[in-house]
């Protein structure tokens, strides 16, 4: 009888224990569900995209992603160079740009990312000159490449085309710049900054190529000549980026060598800066500071011809 009672107690204890264990499991499940529920819905999409991006062979840099991203953020947007060309009074010339129908030539993610940067620069240039029909063609080419690179979700092509048709220049430039920035941020977040580096390199080479073409037809424009010369600072940054990828990938290594050959010519350019204290004034609630430093760019005609020649060779290699 006593034995039976002990058995019953043990059974009850096991049942209680089983119930408590189940309770624990339920609690854990509730906690997990709450935690998953708190995650941003974008994360799931990002995970799916990350899976698809893993199929793209992109090398990893030999320094931290934070360091790479910091350098990437230093590179000026191609539209700054385009704005300088427009300010110089030079007219629009679509013959300077890459053919928007050539997107199908670019089959690897390496080529696609480089030419995405090139088409992005062409789009910015066309937008600035309000060449809306050309802009629409470049939007089409970009759409094809971003679909191949599986980043189409960052571009609202319907809105971009509508803005181009309406000639809403400010909104168009703003939206396309934002979209390209988001793509860059996304690549950086996903440890795919190699693709950002390629986009930046392509965009910069295209802007430099356009500047060279504009200068060739405006040889008296010393401001434009000096602008081409001071691109040495940007090229130094691009080489710094590429250097961190060249060891892990042969395509990056070749690209680095090409850009290095351009740097060898740029080493003939001397940039002389004289420092001066800034002065301040308040204008309509905004603090305006004028930097009283100055820069003198020393670049001769022979150097600029060599820059034009090497830049054209590199760019031809990218777009063909």
């Amino acid at each position: 009888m006593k034995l039976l009672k002990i058995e019953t107690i043990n059974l009850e204890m096991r049942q209680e224990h089983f119930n408590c264990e189940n309770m624990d499991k339920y609690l854990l499940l509730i906690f997990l569900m709450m935690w998953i529920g708190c995650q941003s819905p974008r994360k799931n999409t990002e995970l799916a995209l990350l899976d698809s991006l893993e199929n793209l062979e992109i090398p990893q840099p030999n320094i931290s992603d934070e360091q790479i991203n910091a350098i990437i953020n230093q590179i000026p947007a191609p539209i700054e160079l385009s704005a300088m060309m427009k300010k110089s009074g030079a007219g629009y010339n679509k013959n300077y740009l890459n053919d928007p129908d050539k997107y199908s030539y670019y089959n690897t993610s390496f080529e696609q990312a480089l030419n995405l940067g090139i088409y992005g620069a062409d789009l910015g240039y066309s937008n600035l000159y309000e060449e809306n029909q050309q802009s629409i063609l470049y939007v089409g080419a970009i759409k094809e490449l971003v679909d191949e690179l599986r980043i189409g979700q960052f571009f609202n092509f319907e809105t971009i085309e509508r803005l181009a048709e309406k000639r809403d220049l400010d909104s168009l430039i703003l939206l396309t710049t934002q979209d390209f920035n988001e793509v860059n941020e996304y690549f950086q977040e996903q440890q795919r900054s190699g693709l950002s580096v390629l986009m930046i390199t392509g965009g910069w080479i295209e802007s430099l190529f356009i500047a060279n073409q504009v200068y060739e037809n405006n040889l008296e424009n010393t401001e434009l000549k000096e602008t081409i010369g001071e691109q040495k600072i940007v090229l130094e940054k691009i080489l710094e980026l590429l250097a961190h990828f060249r060891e892990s990938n042969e395509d990056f290594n070749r690209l680095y060598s090409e850009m290095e050959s351009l740097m060898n010519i740029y080493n003939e350019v001397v940039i002389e800066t004289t420092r001066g204290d800034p002065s301040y004034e308040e204008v309509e609630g905004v603090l305006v500071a004028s930097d009283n430093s100055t820069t003198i760019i020393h670049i001769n005609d022979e150097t600029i011809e060599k820059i034009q020649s090497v830049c054209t060779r590199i760019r031809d290699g990218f777009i063909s």
Partner: protein
Amino acid sequence: MDLLAKEYMMNKFLLKFSILVFIIFLTGMHVYAQCENNTQTRECISKIQNGFIYVKSFPIDGKNGLKEKVEYSYVMTRDTQYYLNLCTPENDADGIIITIYDSERNPVSTNYADGRFFLALIFQCNATGIYYISYTFDGSKNYCAGSTLAFKK
């Protein structure tokens, strides 16, 4: 024995439940304290002064005061005006000081002058080179903001 065992199991369950509730509470606190500056960044884009072209957004997250400064760098070009604004949940500068330094770390522009914080600054760049855009905190409540860079030739 029966009651003791039940009480023991119940206490064990309550202890685990309390720990879980505490973890959930902490997680909630963490989410609450996170700097979600996308709204401020978007707001800043819409506030760019007419005539300037947007180039970049800079999120500012001082990690509730754990970070002394947030810094970005950018190659600025001479004969260009750069516009830099600041947007916070407080709709004022919230003690955030923007300082632009040249490549030799000389300060060349700020949004803080004569004891006043400005929500935007314009920097007339006359020397091409790397510039450091630094955000520091002086009595900030949120340590969280958005900022955008735009230019005009």
